[in-house]
């Protein structure tokens, strides 16, 4: 099931609606990385509220996605990780190091507003 990617002014928002297979995740990553350039976005929000599990592959993909997008000149925030999911993740040693996280979409937007305001533009 493809993940819809919405454009909201300078940001891209990808809301994951249901559990994703590995292939879907990789497709989402490629699409986001590509679209950041096309839309000249300054930030990307990946909303995982609907997920009740984030396994090691998904976590690694999300982390790679954030690193790649940073190289493309934008910030990434993961929002909506559930308390139980968060606890399960740290118990497995998955901490999404170096990736920004926020409580929900609203907080994610606030984070991006704060962190991309003074950021240098491409042109």
């Amino acid at each position: 099931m493809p993940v819809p990617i919405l454009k909201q002014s300078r940001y891209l928002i990808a809301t994951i609606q249901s559990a994703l297979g590995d292939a879907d995740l990789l497709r989402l990553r490629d699409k986001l990385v590509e679209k950041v350039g096309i839309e000249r976005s300054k930030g990307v929000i990946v909303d995982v509220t609907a997920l009740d599990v984030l396994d090691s592959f998904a976590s690694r993909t999300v982390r790679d996605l954030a690193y790649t997008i940073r190289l493309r000149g934008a910030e990434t925030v993961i929002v909506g990780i559930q308390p139980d999911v968060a606890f399960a993740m740290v118990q497995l040693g998955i901490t999404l190091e170096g990736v920004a996280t926020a409580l929900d979409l609203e907080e994610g937007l606030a984070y991006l507003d704060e962190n991309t305001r003074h950021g240098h533009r491409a042109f």
Partner: protein
Amino acid sequence: MKIAKDQSPDIQEIVSGSTAELLRQLVAHLRQNRTDLREEWARRITQAKLLTAMNDAEIFAEATSVYDNYVEALETGTFEALQAYARNLSERIIPRGVQTDEVVGIVLLLRDVLARSLFAKYQADFNLLNRILDAYEPAANRIANTVAVGFVQERERIIRQQQDAIRELSTPVLQVRERLLILPIIGVMDPQRARQLTEQLLRGIRANRARVVVIDITGVAAIDSHVANHLVQTVEASRLLGATVIVTGLSPEIAQTLVNIGVDLGKMNTVGDLQGGIEEAERLLGYKVVPLTETTAQD
């Protein structure tokens, strides 16, 4: 012994009786001598310095109730009423500091007092006395057992209840400011409590939409590697929810422990005391606390 005075004339009737018949006889005897035996028992309780938390009148009142329930249990062979009474009695006397040995002691005393009255009554006929005791002892033992177990169960129930209450009380998640939570931890940290604390905190972060959390462990005396790792996990899990955690009040001992067991301190944001932690949190949230005099001077 004054209870030994009355010699029953109907001994012959029950020589050939069954256990049930013997018990009936026994119960009749206990009913007949209720006042004397009861007084004797209460006197022995005071003498043995049991139930010191209660006065004589109270002891006598309870002794009467226990005596009647005791006889009834002997008569009917059912222990539900006695069990309920034992629970009820325990509920009343446990808060007054009555100990297990006292309760077991008074029940054994009653058993003793009644047995002596039986010795006195049937001493003429050793055979009959033996058979009476055969009928009496198992029932009496079961009664003593029921009362003691009832008391201990009640005590355990109260202990469990209090443990739950302490657990609930000792880990409050408090909001001090919009987006700022405080989690003061007091007392002993065991793995179970650490886990519960994490769950409560993560839920609190979500419910209060917290961005910064100050965990204050001034009240924690010691920490082991298991709990320390759990603390680090809590910090990391909170970050995944978008909240920054500041740990404050690490005692010298705990700080040493954390270094010795090699906890990755890079992930932990620590500040000396709670005040410093809150100030740091306010800075992160963009608050600035200014004395009232300063603001009015500026106006």
